């Protein structure tokens, strides 16, 4: 098969079953790994491939796996973060729906690499319908011997369990996910200790995003160099860029890491409808600070977005067209964070609610520059002070929006 044809995501959802997956070369990587590689070698390969987490944080996957103490006895777990909830993001849904076996195979390889016998897939509650297909794929894999006690005749055994969430964005944060999986409210834990040392049920745990894991088979099949070649040296491979909003062809596009943002918007997603212009772009999910039209000449990779004062995050691009009142966008933002705050720590619990109250008042009764200053200041009181990254995820985009669209907002609230 030509290298360029290697795709994580099939074009439709007709080839998700084991039969199709096998025909396309599925589970060859797992076989290779189990028959001819040592776990440490797998970790090295993934590290060399520059695979960065595709959940939002962008942390190098190989490095994360290396944090699990090799000699630690006792249980170990792999948690798959399928709690996709970052607004503007819908790629993991498609992996689960169109290519669940890529995920299962990725889980298998990862579990082997870190010596983990049990994996839990935490699927957001709203994806219950989708996870039915995932369960089927898992059952298929078990029947075919790709999961279970002695996989492909090796000494390695793995059990995979699908665990439903129940409507809480915060459970996408890795330690909140662990809390939720253990049967408690999804409130993040203090770090240290880190999950690699003390995680699920107090055991060493690796937590990875769906797309991250689903990308692993490619690496082991075609090699780290190949993967790096598809993307960038420290940020290898292709990624699933989701794009929605005012574009002609919203959807998920599997493109090399480093693809220019403009190319995704204009070429792949077909640009905006006739006569419409870009007003703003959210580049990586709602928590990624908004970019103005003049800021869009960016390669879409973790480091470039960070340098531009935003983030690649979950690579969920939302194109906001001209004519959109930014006060309303601010409202959507403020409402989201106020609703999804877990409530554990002071700045986030009260700060997000306070900001929403101000925005609601501004919409209802107008206000002035001092109100906008206050929003920025309150976001500043949240930034860097919270127990988990949700705080920054709320503060930074709110500050960016209010700062970059200050003029329009001042006009909108002046009455």
């Amino acid at each position, binding site marked *: 098969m030509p290298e360029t044809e290697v795709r994580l995501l099939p074009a439709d959802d007709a080839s998700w079953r084991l039969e199709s997956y096998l025909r396309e070369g599925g589970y060859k990587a797992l076989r290779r790994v189990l028959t001819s590689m040592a776990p440490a070698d797998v970790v090295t390969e993934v590290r060399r491939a520059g695979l960065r987490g595709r959940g939002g944080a962008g942390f190098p996957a190989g490095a994360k796996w290396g944090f699990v103490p090799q000699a630690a006895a006792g249980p170990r777990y792999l948690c798959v973060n399928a709690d996709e909830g970052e607004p503007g993001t819908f790629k993991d849904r498609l992996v689960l729906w169109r290519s669940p076996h890529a995920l299962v195979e990725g889980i298998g390889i990862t579990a082997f690499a870190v010596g983990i016998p049990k994996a839990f897939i935490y699927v957001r509650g709203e994806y219950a319908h989708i996870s039915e297909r995932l369960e089927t794929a898992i059952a298929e894999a078990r029947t075919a011997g790709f999961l279970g006690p002695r996989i492909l005749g090796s000494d390695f055994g793995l059990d995979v369990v699908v665990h439903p969430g129940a409507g809480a964005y915060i459970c996408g944060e890795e330690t909140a996910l662990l809390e939720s999986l253990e049967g408690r409210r999804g409130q993040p834990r203090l770090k240290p200790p880190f999950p690699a040392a003390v995680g699920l049920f107090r055991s060493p745990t690796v937590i990875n995003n769906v797309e991250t894991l689903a990308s692993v088979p490619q690496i082991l099949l075609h090699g780290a160099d190949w993967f790096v070649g598809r993307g960038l040296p420290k940020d290898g491979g292709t990624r699933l860029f989701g794009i929605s909003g005012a574009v002609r062809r919203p959807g998920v596009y599997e493109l090399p890491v480093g693809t220019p943002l403009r190319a995704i918007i204009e070429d792949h997603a077909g640009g905006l409808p006739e006569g419409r212009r870009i007003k703003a772009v959210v580049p990586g999910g709602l928590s990624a600070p908004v970019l103005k039209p003049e800021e869009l000449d960016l390669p879409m990779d973790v480091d470039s977005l960070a340098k531009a004062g935003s983030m690649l995050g979950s690579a969920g691009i939302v194109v906001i067209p001209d004519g959109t009142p930014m006060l309303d966008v601010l409202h959507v933002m403020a409402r989201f964070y106020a609703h999804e705050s877990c*409530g*554990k720590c002071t*700045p986030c619990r*009260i700060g997000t609610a*306070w900001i929403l109250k101000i925005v609601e008042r501004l919409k209802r009764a107008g206000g002035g520059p001092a109100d906008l200053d206050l929003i920025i200041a309150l976001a500043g009181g949240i930034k*860097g*002070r919270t*127990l988990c990254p949700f705080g920054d995820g709320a503060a930074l985009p709110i500050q960016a929006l209010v700062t970059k669209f200050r003029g329009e907002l001042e006009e909108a609230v002046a009455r």
Partner: protein
Amino acid sequence: MSEPRRVRLTIDGRTVEADAGTNVLKASEAAGIDIPHFCYHPGLEIEGSCRMCLVEIEGLPKLELSCSTLVREGLVVRTSTERVRSARKDVLEFLLAEHPLDCPICDKAGECLLQDDYDRHGRYASRSIETRERREKKLPIGRRLILDRERCVLCSRCVRFLRQVTRTGELGVFERAVRSEVGLVEDRPVDNNYSGNLVDICPVGAITAEDFRFRTRAWFLTRKPTVCPHCGRGCAVFIESVSGYPLKRSDSRVYRVTARENPAVNGHWICDLGRDGRHDIDDGRTAGLAGKGRELPGWTWPAALARVGEAIRALPAPDRRARLAVVLNSRMTCEELALAKSLFVRGLGLDRIYFADAKPGAGDRLLLTPERVPNARGVLEAGFDPRLPGLHELAASKVALIFGTGLAAHFPEEALAEVLAEIPEKHIFSSHATPLDRLADTVIPTAVPAEKSGTYINVEGLRQTFAQALRPCPGVVTEGDILSGLADRLAIDAGRDDAR
């Protein structure tokens, strides 16, 4: 157990030594530097949610929690830079934006961490003009405790205490985001013997005790340390009393008993039995000097004691052993017991001393011991063989000296009355009134443990000396005073320690 390793770190420019494994907040406090906090409590697991204790740690870009950062050799900590001050102000401003202006009616005023912290670390002009969340303000949660959800700062100390210390878990946190609130399941209210600690540990006035609500102000209370006498544990407590302020006679002197930290005995907690013991201090006290059930105004206790001395002297020496019955109690201090030994055993030659105490009860896994007396070990160490008198033994006596109210716990009132009727001379020295008082020849009111000083030996053999925490009511004397007074009158050298 080996000594913990010591590390040296720098806090605000000063070199400080601390045990490895200590958190920066504790190490700072030990060095005299207070770091404000809400959720942190040394008796509970770290929570890290209030974000008030953030400090600068050199080498780290963000502010870090001092409650969860452990000391390390060479750590450099700054607790009052501009960044830290600003972070504290912000936390306070957030908390106060959702906090009711209840100070004028809140019992916690004067001992509220939010007030104290605003005073020391706030002092900003509030920027909040939005409407606060309105919540339930008077939710009974069990054990006569009231929860005010508007005041609650969600430090979760109460929830953690009930999960980690009592392991009864009656409280939880419901909802999320700003709607988060402490709550419980209706038919499972707080119901354990440590519920009173919830009021102590709540940093604000969210959890209050019905017993204490609206009765006084924290700054009117005088706080004195002593040892709880209601079981054998000997927990460290504070007696908090008001004497004369406001300038009216109040219904009680003692407003509350609170926990005092003692790592060797009770850690940070005391039990409700001990807390409720405050009623023991003020309620049902022996009214005054009496004889044969009548108040005897103008009679002083030395005169009454003289009469007791007469009665004893009137017994021929060979008869004393058989005819002088002495009943002591295990609330007496070691010093008082020594006096009793000198007086009755060495001085008067008695070979049997009786003890009548409150009956034992169920102990628990935390502090409460089955024995409900504070000095059972002291009694043994003094060489007594404590046993309850038989009714026939009492009836056979000619002079009975009864210290305390313990007999009533073991014998029915009518039986005791019958017995007392047969004893020619019976004298009662007790802190609390009983129906037998009307039958006694003399009744001298004695002090409760909070009103005296002395030493108790607790259930683990630990000697604890305590000072008087409360001035006795007029006319009340200690058992020690009575014993040495008797010794004087009988010209017996009792070698009394001055423990008054």
